[in-house]
């Protein structure tokens, strides 16, 4: 029965931000599980797609036209759309900058990709989806518990959860579910600027190691599969227990301050 569970064979899946990081790992996982996969990215990821037998559409998720075109192309080519992973996201030029010094330009860019991009994805994918369809949004642990100097990213990832909830209410009657995944620090390019993060997590997380893309893809697979039909409008956190609370190591460290 293990092989019959979490079955996504022959489903059609779109993954945005699939050129690297979590998106690429999810696309590979879905492909290994027998789904047809369309990778979407603003940069050319055609060779990454070829390497795993996936398709590629180049599109900028912050452009509604691009997103509509991409979703229509997929629907025309395959006649179905079952799984949509809206993962494209940026930290923004002002990542690490306090609010007082943030620029409007960076704020707009972060929201354009992280929020508008997700919004357009929901809008234009859902028209092609049917009962049993699953939309998965990549949010972040920052939407639960954040840090200073990352206000634009944090706000944008909170908005993603709002879209999961509203989307769930509107798409529920059609049997389409939509959820957000909130990963902790993952060892991917978006976190390259965070120094000593591998040491930090040993103190702050119950499971004291860095999250890898391998850890995260299992949750995306679960949410894509029929077994998660009744789970919708939720934000699922995968963070080694950081948001659960303080570890003994953390408390001991505080006592020494």
């Amino acid at each position, binding site marked *: 029965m*293990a092989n019959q569970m979490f079955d996504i064979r022959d489903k059609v899946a779109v993954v945005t931000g699939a050129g690297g990081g979590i998106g690429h790992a999810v696309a590979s996982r879905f492909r290994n599980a027998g789904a047809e996969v369309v990778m979407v990215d603003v940069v050319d990821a055609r060779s990454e797609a070829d390497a795993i037998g996936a398709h590629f559409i180049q599109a900028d998720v912050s452009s509604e036209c691009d997103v509509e075109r991409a979703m229509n192309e997929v629907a025309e080519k395959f006649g179905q759309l079952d799984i949509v992973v809206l993962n494209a996201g940026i930290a923004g030029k002002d990542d690490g900058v306090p609010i007082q010094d943030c620029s409007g330009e960076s704020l707009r860019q972060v929201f354009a990709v992280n929020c508008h991009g997700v919004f357009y994805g929901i809008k234009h994918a859902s028209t092609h989806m049917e009962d049993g369809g699953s939309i998965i949004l990549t949010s972040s642990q920052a939407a639960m518990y954040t840090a200073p100097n990352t206000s634009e990213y944090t706000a944008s990832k909170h908005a993603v959860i709002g879209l999961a909830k509203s989307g769930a209410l509107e798409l529920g009657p059609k049997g389409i*579910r939509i959820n957000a995944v909130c990963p902790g620090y993952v060892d991917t390019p978006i976190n390259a600027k965070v120094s000593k993060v591998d040491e930090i997590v040993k103190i702050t997380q*119950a499971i004291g190691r860095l999250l890898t893309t391998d850890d995260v893809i299992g949750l995306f*697979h679960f949410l894509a599969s029929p*077994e*998660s039909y009744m789970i919708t409008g939720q934000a699922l956190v995968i963070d080694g*227990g950081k948001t659960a*609370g303080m570890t003994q190591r953390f408390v001991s460290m505080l006592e020494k301050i």
Partner: protein
Amino acid sequence: MHSLENKLAVITGGTAGIGLAIARNFLACGARVVISSRSDHESVAETIGATYIAADVADPETVSALFQDVADQFGKIDIVVNNAGIALDLSGVESTDIKDMKRIMEINTFGTWYAMKFAPQHMNDNGSIINTGSVAGSGTTSAGNAEYSMSKAAVAYLTRTSAIELGARGIRVNAVCPALIAGTGMMTEDDGGPAARFCSALTALGRMGSLDEVVGIYNFLASDTSAFITGQEIRVDGGLTAGRPDTISDAIAKSLEI
């Protein structure tokens, strides 16, 4: 990909409802399963190919003995599902008997706490503990449901602290928080009765969940694929906690017109 092959699982409240459905699923995925309940259910276990060991989760001695017996007979445990629980008929705090309040706390909350106290020493590292919570303790509740809600809210925070305490051993602890599921001790079939209408009005997906639809998350959390998820309350609720669907807004509008 999500194998439970040869894992040893113990499921309290495992002889009916969600617990039994989980037992069947785990067995079908190659796990060895021990199911437990208060009264004699050997025959249930035999029918599905599990082992039965009696225990009253409200009695710490029998809980301790349960995990000790499993370890003695079968070896170290990989998966613990703390599913035993009761509910009460809806009744405001002022009219609820103190003994009923204490009883539900003893079974739902203390029972889970006893498992957290006694099970881990008999578990392998990198194992998984899954507590059955509820949306009533992790999301939204209702008048008349105080004792059940608080018993399950307590389980949610016990889940967090145990996740933190056991993290160093790689043992993760999570709570599955269902809304109304047909076929459990607490909920009749999806028969069009009041509970079913309640679900169809209140959830975006428009109906009660079935046992099949709640088993998958337990399986996922039991397997190594979920190794990095811990301390979480995962709601299986058809969108109940996401917000108010149009059906409810329409119903409210209608009732105000009368």
